[in-house]
């Protein structure tokens, strides 16, 4: 099965290891993975800032680069939601582009969703063991329907003990540029997330979006917690954590 990987700009720049863990998971499940070279960003920062012309230009670029593939996999619910849902809205007045966006929307999958519902993987290249809690990132949960998939995959790892934290579906306060523009409000929201993570008693927080990872990890470290690990789901499932 030939699969295109959308790395995402944040993974590319800040945590390339997430990209490699994703690659490993797909390849070990028998996929032929292609990483289109010219990819940059899905355009969400422009879209959420109100600059829809720029968002459209970047969306067109993504369309050109990825529409030739039967499957596109992305290790982020947020960028996935942008491509799957918001592109269609962005092109509401451009029928040709809109129908191309609809085709791409039917082919793009968040990583854990793809592993669970398309590849139906049974075994994972991981011996990760530890006590974890899982945060449901907003776009993954509410736009991409990612809830049971990561948990089903984690359940395949015998060494993993999952304790659900309080309000695991509550936003961590990241919100893209929100976290910079309204840093204090964002800080208060992520503080509550950190309290819930700690109260779960887990040694590691696992989640599927790098934006939320940087937000939560950044607050944990600032408040003196240097030991709670914050991991992307791909790192745990690929045995790279």
């Amino acid at each position, binding site marked *: 099965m030939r699969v295109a990987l959308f*790395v995402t*700009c944040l993974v*590319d*720049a*800040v*945590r*390339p*290891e997430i*990209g*490699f863990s994703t690659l490993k998971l797909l390849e070990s499940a028998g996929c*032929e*993975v*292609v*990483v289109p*070279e010219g*990819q*940059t*960003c899905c355009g969400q*920062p*422009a879209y*959420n*800032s*109100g*600059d*829809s012309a*720029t968002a459209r*230009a970047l969306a067109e*670029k993504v369309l050109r680069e990825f529409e030739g593939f039967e499957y596109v996999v992305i290790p982020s619910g947020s960028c996935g939601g942008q491509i799957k849902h918001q592109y269609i*809205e962005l092109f509401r007045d451009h029928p040709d582009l809109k129908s191309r966006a609809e085709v791409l929307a039917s082919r793009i999958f968040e990583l854990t969703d793809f592993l669970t519902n398309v590849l139906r993987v049974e075994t994972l290249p991981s011996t990760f063991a530890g006590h974890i809690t899982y945060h449901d990132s*907003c*776009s993954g949960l*509410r*736009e991409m329907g990612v809830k049971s998939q990561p948990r089903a995959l984690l359940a395949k790892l015998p060494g993993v003990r999952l304790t659900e934290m309080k309000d695991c*579906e509550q*936003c961590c306060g*990241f*919100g*893209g540029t*929100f*976290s*910079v*523009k*309204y*840093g*204090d*409000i*964002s*800080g*208060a*929201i*992520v*503080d509550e997330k950190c309290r819930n993570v700690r109260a779960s008693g887990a040694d590691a927080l696992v989640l599927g979006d790098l934006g939320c*990872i*940087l*937000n939560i*990890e*950044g*607050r944990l*470290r*600032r408040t003196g917690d240097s030991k709670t690990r914050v991991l992307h789901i791909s790192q745990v499932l690929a045995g790279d954590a």
Partner: protein
Amino acid sequence: MQTQSMHFKARAGQKLADARLQKNLRKLSEKFVTARAAAITELDDFEGTRSAAVERRNRALERLDLWLETFERNATARGAVVLYAQTPEEATGLIVEIAKKHGVRKVTKSKSMVSEEVQLNAALSAAGVQPVETDLGEYILQINDNEAPSHIIAPVIHKDKEEISALFAKTHGTERKSEITQLTREAREVLRGHFLSADMGVTGANFLIAETGTVALVTNEGNEGMCTIMPPKVHVVLTGIEKVLPTLEDVATIMRLLPRSATGQPISNYFSLLTGPRRADEPDGPEHMYYVLVDAGRTGLLGSEFQEMLRCIRCGACMNHCPVYQKIGGHAYGWVYPGPMGSVLTPSYVGIENALDLPHAATLCGQCSVVCPVKIPLPDLLRKLREKQWERGLRPWYEHVAIGGWAFVAKRPALYALGSRIAVRMLNWMGGSDRLIRQLPIGAGWTRSRDFPAPSGRTFRDMYRERRADGARSV
């Protein structure tokens, strides 16, 4: 109410620093969220009921003119007078005129957010008419120097029992009470005198029912009944034109959702359907009944990309579940309607340029639209308002520069690869030995409350290219 929405950031900062408010907000948002979650499971088909409610609200809005005319015809036939106000000033003008015509000196009021919108109390007071709020929460705010409500259904959610107890003792000249039942009894004793001596009652409307010319009122305290069927000679219903529903069936469907979404109750304690003034064969009710139906920006949303906002049934679920509202409360938003629904309504009603922060002060987490009983796509509407700000050049210059510069690079892969290679090296170096950046040169908002975990120093694209060149992998 004067809009203070341009001071959002400063107000939000004050609210975040208010430990007492933080405690009060935590307690109550948890209560509403939990109660709603339990209440919606009681319905066999909550999602189906939501869809039905959407259809019924849409049907009303698509031919709002027709249903308003139908309502007017039927309400008039039952003896009520239906008046329209295009602006807040017209609305208060009409009500003051009604008060003068009937020699009114005191008005009892049931809860109405539209009356906050049009600043009715100030207009009545200026005309020498005493307005008395009779919803307990609104009463508390009124005796606290006309403080603004901070929530649309729980106006005093920002206060705790101790604050209210002190306020009652000071205002009523009584001993401090420690029990809520003692406090409500005290309020009831004070309000009873007002109910008996008022000449006019003003209520809002949860719904106007076109086929019968009826107003539907939902309360938990029963004060709407006291305002309308006790001595007052006159009952004035003040509401927005979008509140009309074609039929009683519509109300039945939507009432399955409203109290459950609002407070988690299967049904409110009181639900009144009032049709026209007292008839000859009826023992009670007002002698005169008026409707003042306010536009004040609503028709501007009709037929626009924001029309869906008019479906709102004012349950407050969006703010109860909003991570931002839960941290800053309603006052920070600076006008009548807070939270996600307010962040759409405020710019729509007071001008997009007078509330620049509100559409941006949201994480777009999407929980508001998940819990909205009439499926208003609030994050989409907030994003559309951001688009409008951008198109009209209302965003600060540095945002245009930042997005413009970043987009220029993001559209050019070779330049992007080079730029990101340099940027991640710099950031990696800034991370020092513990891999944490404590102060970002751009993005100080981030590092005020958290560190930035440093990048590992090389981009995925560079590492991947290298790996492929090494022959470690073939595609």
